[in-house]
Every structure is written in structure tokens, then in C-alpha cells.
């Protein structure tokens, strides 16, 4: 079994829909070829910039952070990271960032796309659209690209999130943060209008927001179905199934995909089909996964573990807003989602004002609720040293979960760079952890 799920293995999916995701969102997977053929403007952007806005401008996009996951999956990220380090960038920096900067170094030095670059490379961006959501490196990332490699226009939006102890019901405070959300969103639109020469079509944007709302209803309902025993869908599917809402929110393809996935997962629940025949342990996952070794989840399944719910990129209850003014609707969605997230504890996941639909991670109070809702036996947190934004606070959450007797294992590697992976050590830690979980399994969760 270890030969199948050894180091650096791709994930084997449980659901047909996810296995055939390319059929639903071919535009995303074929974007490399399409942009070469299309001869239109290319924007490099990142999560948090609001995928619906990009759809409204019909922009051809590339996402350096997603490209990092691709490079990781194709086992070429180490080379790019090393290139960045040779350029003077610290190996402590985010490996998504190092992957991008190393790729650009190679492009500069070779004067062409590096041969090992997936998708034929990331294309030549006309402009960069960044977001400060989640962490500072995101501001510095595109800034470093602009300073060091490419002279192109850059816009970074500036979402500011209230601290955990802010009273979000206070109308003064609400307007204070909404004003910033509104202003930075409007500035982003102005930038895009200047770069594209197009005006934002509000009618089209309304339709996109409506699609997004519908897609999220199906996706959230699917996540809720995973409470069933046996769990019908695990993390090996989840971390691929998030692609449409992360990058293609508002597209009809995303609605089709999530509808199909919901129907399949519902069918699995009705027929009591689980991820594995004998489900022994049900876990929650925290942190960015090791994209170079998604077969990890299949390995866990050989030990009887199914990951039923993930803190990372969790969408929460979908927020429906009045789309009469779709821009104000986006502001309202962002704020209402922030209120929801804060209610469940935002002390270690403070970036709650996100015009996207997801959370970087959820608070400990929600995970405690999941312990009962998803019938959890434990949790696993992936500590990625190069991503302090998502790793810091896992110890805090571990201490909070200990209050209800839910054990949490923290293991360390990286999301993109497999040099940080120690297969034998990680597997030994999992096996040891399961002994702990087994010993506590009989106790009731408070």
C-alpha cells in the first residue's frame, strides 16, 4: 500500500464529479493554450481580489499562487524556489512567492519560459491585481515582481479586517469598515476600467453575483452532507473541488460543477457510500495542504482516516444579498461574512473581510461545533513554516480543542516545497497520533 501512497503521490479522488472536473471548467485547465491563442490582456491576480469582478471584465487571468500548487503537483517547485533563493530571497519566505520569483528569474536568465514550467508558463501579464487579504507577503509579492522583474501596472486592494474584539454590531464600526471595503473595491474597478478600456457592466455583474450565490448554495449543502456517516467525500476531493469558487466564482460552469457534485454526494449519502469501506476515524483538517503530496489523504485512508471537514477555504453559510446594486451587494456580502466569521472566533484567523466567498481558516468555536456536527475523533493541522499567516494560531486552536477533549496533531512541512517533507517522520507521527485518538475514542466529547 505504501508503494501506491508513497511520497509525492497525486490524490486518488472519491467522486466522479471531481475526478472529471476538467470537463466542467475546461477554460481554467486550458488557460495556458487559450491565452496564447486569444491575444487578449492577461492579468496576474490572487485570491481575495474578488473573482466575480474579474469575470465581469472578461479578463484572462493567471494566478501565481495557484501556479505554485501546479508546480508543486508536477514536482518542479523546488527548482523555482531554489532560483529565488539564489536571487537573494530568503528560504523562509512564502513558497508560493518563491516559486513565482524563481520562475521569473529563469524567464529572465533563459530569455524564454523555463522548459519545465507547467501550462507553458504563466504568460506575460499586462498588469497585476493583488490583494492584501491574509498576509503581508501578498502586498510584497507583486511589489517585488514589479520592482525586480516586470515593469507593469500593479493594483493591490487593501481589505482591512476588524480585530476579534471589535463590536461588529456597532453601526459606526460597521460603516467604518464597509467604507474601506467599498472604496478599495471601487478603486479596483477604476483600475480595471483604465487597464481594459471597458466599463463595468452592472447588469452582467449582477448576473455573475447571482451565479455565485447559487453555486455557493450547492457547495455549502455538499459540505453539510459530509456530516453523514460514512463520510461521502474527503479532502482529496475537497481541495480540487474548491477551484471553481476560488478562481471562477460567478461563472455558469461553477454552478454546473457544484450542482453535479451536490447531486452525486447526496446520492452517495442516500446509498451510504463512504470514502473508504471501513471508516475508523473522522478528522478535521487545518492549514494549506502539501500540494506536492496530495496522496497523503489516501495514505490516511489506509489507516482508516477520513477527513470530513476543512478549516482552510471554508465558505461558511452562504450569504444572500440584495443585488439591486450588485456592488453594494458585494460590500454587504463581505461584511455579513465577516460578522459570521467573527462570531466563531477570529482571534487567530483575523482576516475576515474578504470580498471572496471563503475563509482562509475558521475560528476555534466553529471547529468545536464541528466536533459534534461531523462526529470528529480528532484534527490534523499542517504547519507550513513558509506560511505563518495560516500556521500561526494552530497551537492556540489545539489548546482550545483540548478543552473539549478533541486531540489535534500538528505536523510540519510546506505547501509547495517538498524539501520540507520528511515522509517517514510524518507517517510515524500520524501513526502515533492515531494511538492517542484510539485511546480517547471511547470518551464523550463535552
Amino acid at each position, binding site marked *: 500500500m505504501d508503494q501506491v501512497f508513497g511520497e509525492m503521490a497525486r490524490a486518488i479522488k472519491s467522486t466522479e464529479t471531481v475526478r472529471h472536473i476538467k470537463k466542467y471548467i475546461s477554460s481554467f485547465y486550458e488557460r495556458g493554450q487559450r491565452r496564447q491563442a486569444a491575444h487578449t490582456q492577461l492579468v496576474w491576480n490572487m485570491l481575495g481580489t474578488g473573482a466575480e469582478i474579474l469575470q465581469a471584465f472578461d479578463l484572462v487571468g493567471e494566478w501565481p499562487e495557484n501556479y505554485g500548487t501546479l508546480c508543486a503537483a508536477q514536482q518542479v517547485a523546488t527548482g523555482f524556489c531554489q532560483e529565488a533563493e539564489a*536571487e*537573494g*530571497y*530568503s528560504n*523562509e*519566505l*512564502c513558497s508560493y*512567492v518563491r516559486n513565482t520569483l524563481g520562475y521569473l528569474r529563469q524567464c529572465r536568465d533563459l530569455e524564454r519560459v523555463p522548459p519545465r514550467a507547467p501550462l507553458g508558463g504563466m504568460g506575460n501579464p499586462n498588469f497585476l491585481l493583488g490583494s*492584501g487579504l491574509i*498576509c*503581508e*507577503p501578498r*502586498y*510584497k*509579492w*507583486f*511589489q*517585488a*515582481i*514589479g*520592482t*525586480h522583474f516586470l*515593469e507593469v501596472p*500593479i493594483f*493591490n*486592494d*487593501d481589505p*482591512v*479586517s*476588524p*480585530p*476579534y*474584539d*471589535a463590536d461588529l454590531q456597532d453601526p459606526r*464600526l460597521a460603516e*467604518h469598515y464597509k*467604507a*474601506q471595503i467599498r*472604496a*478599495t473595491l471601487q*478603486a479596483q474597478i477604476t483600475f480595471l476600467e483604465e487597464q481594459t478600456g471597458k466599463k463595468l457592466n452592472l447588469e452582467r455583474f449582477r448576473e455573475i453575483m447571482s451565479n455565485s450565490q447559487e453555486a455557493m448554495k450547492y457547495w455549502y449543502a455538499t459540505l453539510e452532507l459530509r456530516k453523514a456517516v460514512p463520510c461521502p467525500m474527503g479532502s482529496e476531493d475537497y481541495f480540487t473541488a474548491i477551484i471553481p469558487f476560488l478562481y471562477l466564482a460567478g461563472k455558469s460552469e461553477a454552478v454546473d460543477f457544484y450542482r453535479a457534485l451536490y447531486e452525486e454526494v447526496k446520492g452517495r449519502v442516500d446509498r451510504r457510500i463512504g470514502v473508504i469501506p471501513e471508516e475508523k476515524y473522522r478528522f478535521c483538517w487545518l492549514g494549506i495542504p502539501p500540494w506536492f503530496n496530495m496522496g497523503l489523504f489516501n495514505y490516511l485512508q489506509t489507516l482508516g482516516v477520513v477527513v470530513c471537514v476543512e478549516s482552510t477555504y471554508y465558505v461558511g453559510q452562504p450569504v444572500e444579498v440584495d443585488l439591486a446594486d450588485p456592488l453594494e451587494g458585494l460590500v454587504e456580502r463581505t461584511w455579513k461574512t465577516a460578522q459570521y466569521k467573527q462570531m466563531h472566533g*477570529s*482571534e*487567530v484567523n*483575523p482576516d475576515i473581510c474578504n470580498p471572496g466567498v471563503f475563509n482562509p481558516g475558521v475560528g476555534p468555536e466553529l471547529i468545536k461545533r464541528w466536533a459534534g456536527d461531523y462526529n470528529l475523533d480528532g484534527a490534523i493541522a499542517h*504547519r507550513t*513554516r513558509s506560511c*505563518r*499567516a495560516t*500556521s*500561526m*494560531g*494552530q*497551537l*492556540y486552536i489545539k*489548546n482550545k480543542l483540548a478543552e473539549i477533549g478533541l486531540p489535534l496533531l500538528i505536523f510540519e512541512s510546506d505547501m509547495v516545497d517538498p524539501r520540507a517533507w520528511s515522509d517517514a517522520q510524518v507517517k510515524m507521527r500520524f501513526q502515533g497520533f492515531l494511538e492517542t485518538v484510539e485511546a480517547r475514542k471511547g470518551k464523550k466529547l463535552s
Partner: protein
Amino acid sequence: MNAKKGLAKAVELYANKGERARELRAQGRKVLGYVCLFAPPEIMAAAGVLPYRLRGDLQEPITKAHDLVEPFGCPYMRNLLDQDLKEKYDFLDGLVMSHSCDTVQRFYGIWTLNKKPSFHCFVNVPHTLTPWSREFFKRELIFFREKIENFSGNEISNDQLKKTIQEYNKCRVLLRKLYSLRKEDPPLLSGNEGLQVLVAGMGLPVNEFHSLLHEVTKEVLGRSQRPARKAVRLMIYGSICDDLGLVQLLEEGDAYVVIDDTCIGTRSFMHDVPETSDPLDGLVTAYFDSFPCPRTDRGANRARFEYIANFAKEYQANGVIMYIYSYCDPHKLDAPDISEMLKKEGLRALIIDDDYSLSNQAAIRMRIQAFLELLI
């Protein structure tokens, strides 16, 4: 109150961390600990509160903090938290933090929910220098002022805040004057002395710091003997440098530290707070627009780094020590471009990556010695 004056007083205040704050607290003054200037001390001082900038302790290994936070991330913040958990800040009435960076943003929750200070607040800070972000920061300062008023029981009128800003600006003028004495060759004030003065000021009421600066300046100008000349003049660039450890390592060799671009160094006093009709506007200009912390997005133009080279040239520095903490993303993502810029300007740079403790002192010393030999 301390009977010493001038540099001797600064040395004593540096050595006895928090002593003056403890004395004032015993006399009934409220003391708030703060981490970063994004929460302007002027607002706290205007309410009669003593703003006490938290200081790290190089000699104290981090132990208790590891029960609460990951063993990576900003070592400086972990050091500060560790000290609070060991009751080293028992003279504080509360804690003020600001969105300096990701780590501080996350530490705010972890720290305050575990240590439970009787008062705590967070000043949020946007990242982009845009009109709307400036307006946001100004509104944050309005909320901050209200919280400090509630905490202290004292109203902070615009007039009072303007007076306090003037007091702080007077200190800035004196600090710039003191620093200008380091343009001399040899500098009339060593790096060791300068740092002790700065750190002493971190825990003093503004009027007392003002007096201290007067005394030190007079004393330095009145010295009968000039210090010995050294071959190398250095600039320190980087994050907070509040302990003599690094400066001592640099000055034990044939070098003086003559200028810096660091948090409690020139970043804190090179620009006055403009005296505006609404004093909060002046604070926004000083602490948001002008404060050159790399966490703020100033665009991709390399010109944003030129002031570093200008400083170095103005103070005739031969080389630049880029002292950067482990895991400090804002400084580390700028480092390659700053190094390149300095090289083009004819300035050599040495990057020292440290976990704040200087635990690898032997290796750092060797690198510094080799660097100084290159410059001599």
C-alpha cells in the same frame, strides 16, 4: 527619581528596564504598553497616560511563549510575549497593539486572550497609501482616542493633543540634532551611546525625555576628549534594534555605527508630526504616510529605497548592516532590491539574519569582522 544626568542616566535607564514607569505608576500614573508607533504615543500621552514601548530581552530565552505560540514567526514578538508571561511587565495597566504586521495582528488575539490584560486595544492600519486608506486610518485614530479617553477618564481635546504633539516634536528636533553629531569623524556619539539614549526614551514621559536629550547633547558637545577615530562607519538598516548586543558586536571592531534606519531609530524621529488644525491629520501624515516601514505598500518603484542610500552618504557610512529578523517578510522581500540599490550607490551591505537573541554570536562576529576588513 534618578539623580544621574545625561549619558549616565541613559545608561542607568537602559539597564533598569521599566524603573521609571514603575515609579510613576506608584504615584498614580496609568501606564500602557505598546508595540509599535502605528498606535501613536501622542494620543496616549495627551490623556496623561505614560506610553511605554515594550522592550525585548536578549538574555532571556523564550520558554513560556512556546506554550501559546508556534516556535517560528517574529522572534521579537515571541520575546515580548514571553516576558509578559513571566510578569516582567507587571507595571502595565494595559496593552496597545497595532496592525504592524501579520504576526502582531495574530498575537493580539493570542496574547490578550491568554494574559487577559485589564485594558487592551488594537489600532488597525491599512497597507496602501491611498486616500481611502488614509481616511480609514484617521477614523481608527478617532476610535483609538475614544478608547484611551475611556481608559484614562480624561478627555483628549484637540488643544491638548496639539500640545502633546509639539512636545514630541521637540524631542524629535533634539534627536535629529544629537544624531547630527554622528556625522563628525569620529562621531561625537557612539552607536552604543545613541542606542541607550533611544531605549531610555522608550519608557519616559515626553518631558523627561526632552530633558534627558538636552543633558546628553550638552554633555557630548562639552566633552574635552574626542573619541578615538575608527576606520569604518556603518549604517544599520532593518527592524527594531533595542538591545546593545548587535551594536556592541559592530563597535568592538574598528567601526562606529553612525546612522540607522530602524523602528526606534530614525524612522521614529526623522519626520515631525505636522501641526495641523485637526491634529489627527498630522498623526496620519507622520505615522501612515511618512513612516517608512516596509509593511506599507509604497509601490514598486526602486526610488522608495533611495532614502537609505542618502542617509548612508549624508553620514559618510562605508557600509550597511541589514539586520533582519527571522521570518520578517516585509524586510526580507525588500532585501534583494535594497542590496542591489546599495551596490549601485557604491555601498557594501552585509545581511545579518537573526532570531533576535544573537545566539549565534560567534558566527555573526566572524561575518562582521570579515565585512569590516572588506571596508577598511
